[in-house]
């Protein structure tokens, strides 16, 4: 199983590395954004799908990473890569504070608090226009010189692969079991000796760190930041990606993010209608297939073969039995 996973990961890295040979210009940009969403969706899955903490502040944390890094570069002489790291760490710190605040609460409280935090933070950021230039947009220095998108692509691919690897290792260690134990039943987990407080905070910190990292990269890639990257419907998009892909698997979330991003670019000419359709798909998937679409599709593709063979076998056996009976 482990061998298979590593093989799968290695082949995805090779395919990912070769993509710029076939994809250029605008679609390479779309691919870069897809990778950004993939990091956000997978880290949200770690928090929501695995640990059961439904946070709506994920994009606000990405925004904190982006604005911290951008303002540091603009106002101090810190090197760019360091400022990105500081952005990610700031997001992790704020994530830790949010985690600490909602620690003793459960269920809808986490969702209620984070949605309020996210929206009010966005508005306050827009109001502090002296610092952030508000809705006019903050111009952010680019990560690389020149106009080529290739270095950006390989950087975000590297971040995506490394963050997925780290999250995969965490989720497959005993910590992953603690997270799932907390999701299923906090009291039972705590009785069994899981330090609920510590691991809830840990999930918030890890997930916020990667959100902040992705956000900081995004700012330096796009070159322009507005508080609108944290709008609630944008958060809805991340959730749609995770849920459609499958909320309880990193691979599902990544697949969902890439699929939804490409579909949404492909259907761009339909404008508002595609967003309505995505939301409708999200509602229908939630209602009828809570494991998302990727895993059931996988099951259908591979288990259909097994089922067909089993049926054939049974027919043969029954045939022999019937013949013997006569």
């Amino acid at each position, binding site marked *: 199983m482990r061998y298979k996973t590593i093989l799968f990961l290695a082949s995805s890295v090779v395919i990912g590395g070769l993509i710029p040979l076939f994809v250029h210009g605008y679609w390479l940009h779309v691919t870069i954004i897809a990778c950004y969403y993939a990091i956000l969706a997978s880290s949200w899955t770690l928090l929501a799908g695995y640990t059961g903490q439904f946070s709506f502040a994920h994009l606000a944390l990405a925004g904190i990473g982006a604005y911290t890094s951008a303002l540091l570069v603009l106002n101090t002489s810190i090197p760019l890569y360091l400022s990105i790291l500081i952005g990610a760490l700031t997001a992790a710190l704020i994530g830790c504070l949010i985690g600490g605040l909602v620690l003793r609460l459960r*269920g*809808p*409280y986490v969702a209620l608090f984070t949605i309020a935090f996210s929206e*009010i933070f966005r508005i306050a950021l827009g109001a*502090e226009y002296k610092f952030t230039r508000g809705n006019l947009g903050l111009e952010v220095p680019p990560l690389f010189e020149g106009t080529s998108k290739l270095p950006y692509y390989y950087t975000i691919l590297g971040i995506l692969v490394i963050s997925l690897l780290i999250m995969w290792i965490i989720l497959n260690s005993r910590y992953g079991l603690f997270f799932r134990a907390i999701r299923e039943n906090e009291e039972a987990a705590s009785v069994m000796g899981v330090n609920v407080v510590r691991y809830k905070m840990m999930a918030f910190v890890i997930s916020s760190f990667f959100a902040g990292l992705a956000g900081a990269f995004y700012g330096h890639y796009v070159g322009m930041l507005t508080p609108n990257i944290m709008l*609630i419907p944008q958060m*809805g998009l991340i959730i749609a990606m995770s849920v459609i892909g499958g909320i309880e698997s990193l691979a599902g979330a990544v697949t969902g993010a890439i699929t939804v991003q490409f579909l949404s670019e492909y259907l761009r000419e339909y404008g508002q209608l595609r967003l*309505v359709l995505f*939301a409708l798909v999200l*509602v229908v998937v939630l209602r009828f297939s809570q494991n998302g679409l990727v895993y059931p599709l996988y099951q259908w593709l591979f288990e259909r073969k097994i089922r067909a063979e089993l049926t054939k076998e049974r027919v043969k056996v029954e045939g022999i039995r019937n013949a013997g009976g006569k």
Partner: protein
Amino acid sequence: MAEYLALQALNGLVIGLLYVLMATGLSLIFSVLKIVNFAHGELYMLGGFASYYLTRLLGINPFLAVSLSMLIVFLLGVIIEFLLLHPIYTGAIERKDEYAILMTFALSIFLQNLALMIFGPWTKNPSPFTSGTTTIGFLTTSNNRLIVAALAIVLILALLVTINKTFVGKGLRAVSQDRDAASIVGINPHRMNLLAFGVGAALAGGAGALIGPIFFVEPTMGTLPGIKCFVIIILGGMGSIKGSIIAGIILGEVESLGSVLLLDPTRGLAYKNAFGLLILIIILLIKPTGLFGEKYVRME
């Protein structure tokens, strides 16, 4: 200054009453269905648009339009409960809390995008109830606002009487206390779910229909009031209608007076919304159950 403060206090009261109207709907839904409706702001928005189209396109009397808008949103709420939330109570859903959060949130995104597509992103004005101003002492305010406040009070009182004095209200309270026990004594919990969600939605829609004539309506107008309702129900205590009423007025006043007292006017408008977050952080640190809340009961 004192006159200005008094005027702000009056405005805070009017806005607070609309918050109360909306938040009592959210509280009613929470106490009976044990879920938080994240699409509450969008139901409010739909109420606003319903009254806009009823008054401007069909030329219906604004007072009648408010009740018709509430009826429309009531029916929508009933349909939503029947199609999307019913499976929670039949045992078809494994993780009920998560399902309810994600489903109502997805619904809010769907309704907002649908409204953007159908109604367009522009702001619109429903017909005002009346014109002119009234002066009481040194306070001058528009008659429109006074009528909105009066209608909000009437609706809140009607809700309180229905819940506390009628047979249906007794049924709602019974289901909110114990679903199984209620169904043993012959109350159909699912019918009460439909009713509570419908009435909760109608209250949000009513608030939207009332705010339209004072401000305007647009597809994204529901997001912030929706979030403020979350602040209110946490401050008042989840599921407590009395708590929602007091907390709603508190939030309206804190926002109106706080933005005048503390900050320069240009940023005050934006920071008005930050007071809600501040209240939320304080209440979560000091008393997470809110002013009148009981210990939060997990849905099983």
